């Protein structure tokens, strides 16, 4: 834990002020440090802290997607073991720990619950088009497109975001969503169409 060595303002006698670096630290930074401690030092207390935060969420995720309790627990164990083994491959510049854990959980449950392989590009594949091959104009467009998508995600209406979440993250059918949220089926379909339209408008060069 870095100790604050900043100059104290006159009259400031304690270090608990809002300006201290610790107050500005986000959850994301703290989880990143825990993963780093697991990777570097095989730190079991850091692993336990990650487990206590993420294991209940992975369990809920698997139960919601139809796993029974014992399969869900096996999946939690699989995912957390992968966190332990692959901690060194976590890159905080690419994703938050929560997103990284989600991708591991997603892949493991496709493997275990659907008994399917998830096709994915291989980042070491020499046939992959690197982002650096894009022209400066294309790169500028990509940066803009990414920002526009972020804006679009953040400005989704609450009820549209909820239909998106249930449909894609929880894999509910339109009928299940209508029943759970107590809205007519037609409204569910309309909200989903509006949500996708809102995201699509942020897509670059839409043909």
């Amino acid at each position: 834990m870095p100790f604050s060595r900043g100059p104290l303002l006159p009259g400031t006698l304690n270090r608990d002020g809002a300006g201290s670096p610790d107050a500005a630290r986000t959850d994301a930074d703290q989880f990143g440090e825990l993963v780093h401690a697991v990777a570097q030092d095989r730190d079991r207390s850091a692993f336990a802290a990650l487990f206590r935060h993420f294991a209940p969420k992975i369990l809920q995720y698997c139960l919601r997607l139809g796993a029974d309790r014992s399969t869900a627990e096996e999946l939690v164990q699989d995912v957390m073991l992968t966190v332990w083994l692959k901690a060194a491959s976590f890159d905080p510049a690419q994703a938050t720990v929560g997103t990284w854990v989600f991708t591991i959980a997603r892949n493991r449950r496709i493997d275990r619950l659907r008994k399917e392989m998830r096709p994915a590009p291989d980042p070491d594949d020499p046939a992959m088009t690197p982002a650096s091959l894009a022209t400066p104009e294309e790169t500028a467009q990509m940066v803009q497109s990414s920002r526009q998508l972020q804006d679009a995600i953040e400005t989704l209406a609450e009820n549209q975001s909820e239909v998106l979440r249930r449909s894609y993250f929880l894999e509910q059918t339109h009928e299940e969503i209508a029943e759970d949220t107590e809205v007519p089926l037609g409204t569910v379909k309309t909200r989903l169409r509006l949500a996708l339209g809102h995201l699509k408008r942020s897509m670059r060069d839409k043909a």
Partner: protein
Amino acid sequence: MTVPFHHPDDQLLIGYASGQERAGKSLLVATHLAYCPDCRQRVASYEALCGNWLEELPCAGDDGLDALLDRMDGLLTAARIQQEPAPIELPAAGRTCGRLVPEPLRSWLPDAIDTPTDDGSWREISKGVWLSGWERTLSGTTKSGTTVRLLRMASGAPVPAHRHTADELLLVLRGAFRDEYGSYGLGDVAHYVAGTDHYAFGASEEDCICLFLLDGDLIFLDEDGNPL
């Protein structure tokens, strides 16, 4: 143009990111991602959205997972850090002429995509248009799954009139083709929903070769528009 121009719909990208999309269309989306840094970024944004949704899942206070953490202690001791996988071996030079098809599709294909049309690996469906003998049925949204093949079009050769009962998707792996909406080159995706009429023809000097996905049946039509 060095990166693709025609991208998969957001519906496919978010379905791929969330894991909701099944294997057939995921294979096409993932192969498009290898060509398209822009869509890789979009998928990363959607994965981050799913990461937030994971964080927001309500958790029961007493979830009984402490015992699991205790049990994992022994596993952590026994688990060895896995070695980094060996670098991928490039296929022999003869496997593909021109540009290598990227993963994940490359591992699925039996041969180079541009084998001669008279060596038995292609079936001519009309003059200058072939379907690959290679064919896989992967899981899809419908019970019958998604059929995956290669479609090959010689320069100027039109794909015969056909009707499809569900989604049809093309991903260009070599050359280019045109339809009424535009021109499609390397890495581009064309998505036709059920019931739409469209035409397509090869529009490059070399034969255009596409990954060709079909949910449901493909019915070729005669000159009067009746099923053959």
